[in-house]
């Protein structure tokens, strides 16, 4: 009841507010400064989507692409609470949501009534490959050794990841298992609350190997505390001496990504304006700096292309989760 009221109110507000904006704007607005954009972050302050959103907002303002960008958090249920809110704001051309691969899986595990297919895709911004990593005292010297042991006794080779089931670090080992001929159900996956909590268990050898984003572990890798056995992405990572999974003979390519989506039913003008704004962000020096500072890989893909990509990711995630009985 409450939700319906909120939805109705939001719908009413959208109907009342949006036409004047569209009317006064027109095509001439594309490429101009965006005013009063609000960015919804569906996880808590300091989380991945939050850092991306705040960094992008700051870069947009510094580059003079937008003014008064407001970033706000609506955390809950792996991002699906925020997704529900976004979908309810039908037609609101001043709202976008920062999201990523994790939300795709959460839609299934949380049985969310709204899905990403309901949103208007704006742009994919960044990518981060996962790494297959062990502590320095681990018996596994290379990926081949690990795979042999894993195939022999999947239950006795626990794998740790920094996300709950359905999240990126969960999907990566499941896809690896499938490619290696193991049933995903036989994988002994131990979830941790983020890559940080996982780190202690990998360092201490509590899990046989860990799968997580490379960003948080660079220093430990450099210090020799961690050994990277493989990179899950299509290419090697500069500065890290490890093959890709493909090179190691496992036909998997997996990258975590983050991007921006808008509410459903926004006008074409609004959509063009938002895509143009993020395209200009992408080519700004401020964004380049931010990418370098955070160690993110640029993976810009705008509008319809991003929409097709989303649909593809959705299929891939659904397939894995179905086999595990989660979708």
């Amino acid at each position, binding site marked *: 009841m*409450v939700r319906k009221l909120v939805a109705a109110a939001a719908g009413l507000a959208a109907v009342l507010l949006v036409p004047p904006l569209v009317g006064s704007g027109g095509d001439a607005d594309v490429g101009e400064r965006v005013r009063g954009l609000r960015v919804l972050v569906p996880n*808590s*302050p*300091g989380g991945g989507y*939050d*850092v991306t959103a*705040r*960094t992008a*907002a*700051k870069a947009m303002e510094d580059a003079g692409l937008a003014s008064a960008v407001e970033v*706000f*958090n*609506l*955390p*809950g*249920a*792996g991002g*699906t*609470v925020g997704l*529900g809110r976004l979908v309810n704001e039908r037609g609101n051309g001043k709202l976008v949501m920062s999201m990523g691969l994790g939300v795709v899986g959460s839609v299934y*595990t*949380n*049985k*969310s009534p709204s899905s990403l297919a309901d949103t208007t895709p704006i742009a994919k911004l960044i990518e981060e490959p996962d790494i297959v990593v062990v502590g320095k005292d681990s018996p596994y010297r290379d990926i081949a050794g690990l795979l042999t042991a894993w195939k022999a006794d999947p*239950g*006795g080779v*626990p794998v740790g990841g920094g996300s*709950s*089931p*359905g999240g990126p670090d969960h999907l990566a080992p499941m896809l690896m298992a499938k490619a290696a001929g193991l049933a995903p159900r036989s994988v*002994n996956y*131990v*979830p941790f*609350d*983020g890559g*940080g*909590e996982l*780190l*202690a*268990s990998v*360092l*201490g050898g*509590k*899990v046989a190997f860990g799968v997580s984003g490379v*960003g*948080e572990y*660079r*220093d*430990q890798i*450099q*210090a020799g*505390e961690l050994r990277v056995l493989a990179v899950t992405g299509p290419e090697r990572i500069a500065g890290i001496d490890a093959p890709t999974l493909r090179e190691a003979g496992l036909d998997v390519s997996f990258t975590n990504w983050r991007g921006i989506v808008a509410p459903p039913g926004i006008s074409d003008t609004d959509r063009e304006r938002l895509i143009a704004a993020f395209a200009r962000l992408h080519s700004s020096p401020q964004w380049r700096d931010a990418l370098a*500072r*955070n*160690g993110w890989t640029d993976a810009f893909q705008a509008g319809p292309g991003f929409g097709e990509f989303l649909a593809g990711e959705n299929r891939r995630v659904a397939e894995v989760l179905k086999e595990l009985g*989660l979708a």
Partner: protein
Amino acid sequence: MDQLWDGFATALTPTHLLLAAVGVILGTAIGVLPGIGPAMAVALLLPVTYGLEPTGAFIMFAGIYYGGMFGGSTTSILLNTPGESAAVVAAIDGNPMARSGRGAQALAAAAIGHFVGGMVGTTLLVVLAPTVAGLAVGLGAPDFFAIMVLAFAAVTTVLGDSRVRGVASLLIGLTIGLIGLDEMTGQQRLTFGSLELADGIDVVIVAVGLFAVGESLWVAAHLRRNPARPIPVGTPWLGRADLRRAWKPWLRGPLIGFPFGALPAGGAEIPTFLSYATEKRLSKHRDEFGKGAIEGVAGPEATASASAAGTLVSMLTLGLPTTAVAAVMLAAFQQYGIQPGPLLFERESTLVWGLIASLFVGTVLLLVLNLPLAPLWARMLRIPRPYLYAGILFFAMVGAYAVSGQAADLLVLFAIGVIGLVMRRYGLPVLPAILGVILGPAAELQMRRALQLSDGALTGLVNTTFSITVYAVVALLVLWPLVRKARSRT
């Protein structure tokens, strides 16, 4: 040691001193406001500090963290409304003290406790950092589960006069703790299909609901029979008797809090509670606990601050976040292009030692700031009861809303408040319920993780020396009263 003195030289420059002061004042304010924790504060300030050089920014963040620990207990003690989950325990004895006119003493005991905890904790950080960091990596899920079992064994000390009622209350808490998505498998439990419940119910909301809202409803239901009398305000300072009772808990607290802070399994809730249980067991005034024993405030508060120092150990030496604040600070380091981890002390020694020195400076600043405020805060309780409780309800709602900005949380808050009222009506103690909410999910997670790591073998729970040692202690604690009884009979 030389590096520490260099650190003081860094921390005592006027700019850094000012930033430390800004940090601790902001932190105290944020701690006092319920719902907004230090983690959120640091995250929101992150873009603002872009203009600062990293050392200054981190001095400020550390000030906010320590300040939040200081401020969290203020509303706990005065209004029975914990601002932070670390301050829940302070309400148990702090609030009865405040209501009997000893609010200023409770606040002073908490402030000095935080000072001692911060000082001892930071000193241990300087001396023991590498050792404790090794401990954090060496311990795993079976060890953490053993610690949780120990905590459950200690719960018996706070069950109250009636075991049956105490256990009933504990079960209510454990049930509330079950709500949400199961972390291991992603299945929903007790969410009734509601997305708002999928993340479970925040401990702060449960504590505020059971303590503050339940209490307000209870008072409102009885106000007509008990005419409103303003709460007396006694002498503002700690007397000699208070000091005699509080100094040992102040010193014991950090010893519990510091190692716990460094472990990737706890945060400050479990150690503050363990400190409370310890103080109760050791005290000569055991019957006063729950009715306003100063040890019950002094010990846990010293523990809370020391655990913050422990958290920094794992963060600075391993790049390992053990609490939400540390996770946000790690993200902040990355924003400055600094990778926290084993190489941090070598690469950024000015920053690290400046940061550590500023913790000492910040702790002193906090004491100077908070101690004189204690009598002023305590006067707030002179407000007539109807207005006071209206204010409490207002703060409770602000706090519950601020936790995640969802209106649904307000409904949850009042539902729990009604449970709190009913529990008071039937004489169920509230504290075991809170402990159930804190300990239940944590213990379940560690137990299932341990079993998963051993692929389902039960030996996975006892395959480390540490866990066996802890279980031995638990067995002693449980069996000792029986042995004593048997002996006294013969």
